[in-house]
């Protein structure tokens, strides 16, 4: 039993010590805590599902745990090499580590607890702990982005809290195990409550109506923070939606989620076409992937399996993309796509890594994202028919073309280049490892299928 609490304990103790310790000790502690949580979460994966007074760990929690802990480690390593590129950080280094640990702690917390209200608190806590990480560049746009993040996400979460209170009104408990055991009967209040909760958590996940903070934050925060945001924070918010969809498995709710997902991917792909900043472009790509995952969640069964595959492989691939954009930003000192050129010549590892990762995040065939999207789209075909498949495919195609065209332009366009930069091994290696992991998810699909059997049926 103690084992289940271990990820929480190591992160919280690392965070507490980091507040007091100096930079070096904090860094080492964070790395230790991250490397401890990976084997623990992998071990939890093979253990049985758990439901106690406090913990509720099922297959989805396990998947989230593994993903979060791996991204935690890679982000920690990458941050340590990225720090020298920040001229005047907002926080001292040890505080950065402390907040990073707290941030991961709140994500671990929200995927493990057995109470819908506590899940809400955990997701709200991720806002608090990560707001300063966003503003760490300490220039006006990043502070503005951080402020928008705080206010928009908090407002969204208040909406979801109202939804949760409505749900509570019908179920008279917030304990997830109990709620799953005795399903509430369909009534107007629970429908409205679940819809509000979905919109609220969707705010945090970058789902359509209240997504506006997402590109600002991803565009302006530093690379490791963007990476951890895009790869695990957004899925953690989606985790709340998954729980809601399990608690209120009604047809109306599913259709509502499906429509939100469609709107999200359509909007994201439209905004990607004319994007002039590469980090913002990838932020919209995250939005699009989250939309796909939401569609998968709404479909259930094969769709949910596809969503989980997509979630894991997107986490690795997108974190790789954002690490690499960090390398580009530190070398070229610009966020504009038009000002980046000859990547292949100047930074070959970064360039090829970026090309492959952007192929991966847009769902090119050999990567697991393709498989995930394939599952989801075939489920859409079975349930909603061909018209929606066309819409989704068009949106995905638009995203694929615009991202890969722009990445290719950044990589291969020639200019009278005077810029001589070279790759650093750590900052080029970590993204490549993540990219490889994203590819390897392909081989883990049977395992994922196996573990999800209880849920997807």
């Amino acid at each position, binding site marked *: 039993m103690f084992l289940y609490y271990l990820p929480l304990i190591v992160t919280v103790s690392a965070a507490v010590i980091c507040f007091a310790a100096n930079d070096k000790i904090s860094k080492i502690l964070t790395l230790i805590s991250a490397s401890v949580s990976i084997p623990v979460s992998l071990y939890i994966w093979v253990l049985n599902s758990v439901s106690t007074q406090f913990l509720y760990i099922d297959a989805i929690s396990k998947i989230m745990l593994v993903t979060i802990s791996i991204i935690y480690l890679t982000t920690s390593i990458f941050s340590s090499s990225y720090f020298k590129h920040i001229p005047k950080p907002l926080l001292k280094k040890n505080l950065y580590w402390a907040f990073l640990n707290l941030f991961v702690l709140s994500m671990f917390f929200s995927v493990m607890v057995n*109470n819908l209200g506590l899940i809400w608190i955990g997701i709200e806590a991720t806002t608090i702990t990560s707001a300063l990480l966003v503003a760490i560049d300490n220039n006006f746009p990043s*502070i*503005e982005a951080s*402020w928008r993040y705080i206010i928009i996400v908090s407002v969204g979460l208040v909406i979801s809290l109202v939804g949760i209170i409505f749900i509570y009104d019908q179920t008279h408990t917030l304990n997830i195990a109990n709620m799953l055991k005795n399903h509430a009967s369909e009534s*107007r209040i629970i429908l409205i409550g679940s819809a509000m909760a979905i919109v609220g958590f969707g705010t945090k996940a970058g789902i359509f109506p209240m997504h506006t903070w997402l590109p600002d934050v991803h565009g302006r925060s530093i690379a490791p923070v963007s990476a951890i945001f895009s790869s695990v924070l957004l899925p953690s918010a989606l985790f709340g939606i998954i729980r809601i969809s399990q608690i209120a498995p009604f047809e109306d709710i599913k259709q509502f989620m499906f429509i939100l997902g469609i709107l999200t991917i359509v909007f994201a792909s439209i905004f990607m076409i004319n994007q002039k900043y590469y980090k913002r472009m990838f932020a919209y790509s995250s939005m699009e992937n989250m939309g796909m995952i939401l569609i998968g969640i709404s479909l259930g069964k094969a769709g949910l399996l596809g969503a989980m595959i997509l979630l894991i492989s997107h986490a690795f691939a997108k974190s790789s993309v954002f690490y690499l954009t960090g390398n580009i930003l530190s070398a070229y000192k610009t*966020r504009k796509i038009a000002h980046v050129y000859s990547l292949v010549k100047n930074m070959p590892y970064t360039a090829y890594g970026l090309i492959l990762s952007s192929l991966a995040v847009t769902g090119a065939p050999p990567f697991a994202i393709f498989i995930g999207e394939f599952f989801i789209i075939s489920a859409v075909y079975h349930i909603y028919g061909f018209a929606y498949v066309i819409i989704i495919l068009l949106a995905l195609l638009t995203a694929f073309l615009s991202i890969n065209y722009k990445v290719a332009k950044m990589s291969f366009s020639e200019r009278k280049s005077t810029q001589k930069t070279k790759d650093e091994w750590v900052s080029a290696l970590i993204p490549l490892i993540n990219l490889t992991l994203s590819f390897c998810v392909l081989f883990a699909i049977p395992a994922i299928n196996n573990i999800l059997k209880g849920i997807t049926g």
Partner: protein
Amino acid sequence: MKEAFVMVGFLEITLVIFMQWQVYLKKIVDTFSLSSYAISIFLFVDGAILNNINLLILSALTAVVRGFFIPFFIRKKFRKEYYLEREIKSVVPTAMSIVLSLFFVVVGYIVYHATLYNSIGLPGGSIPIALLFQGIFLIMSRNNAFVQLIGYMVMENSLFLFGGYLFPELPLVIEGGILLDLIGIVMISGIIMRLREENVSNIIDEFKEFKG
């Protein structure tokens, strides 16, 4: 108790409209503090009548955290010349925003009666929904970080009024956690807000990147 609920609710609505009217931040913060105390007193009386210890604790927490601590913290973040702390330019003209805020109260009433009234059956139930809309509108209509934060807290206040009255048996852990989260948000925002307000005019010029 129903009467008291409606009275406190409409007091809250008028206080939000007053905030919408004001330009000076100090007055807005004071108004917010007053509205929190009103909710706290209401919860206290409700708890005393229902003999519910949860509500009493919640009332005390509301008074201490929202009535006293948060306004105090925000006031401390002001410059020495507090009268300089004012909205330089708002997104919506003030007279218009007052009428729009009223409009959102009406929208809340209609939405409540169209969706939830049949299930809950409480006539005053439209008030918290109206307050939610008003809070969102307060955030959207102003550019100042302090006012936006207060708009957010107005939303949470409405939630406490609603939750405290309709669901007094809601687990205290949840409400305590919400309050803790709120403190966290205010602390973090305190850092960000000060930095942002010092340079708000510069930021607005650099917003080109944030479009699209």
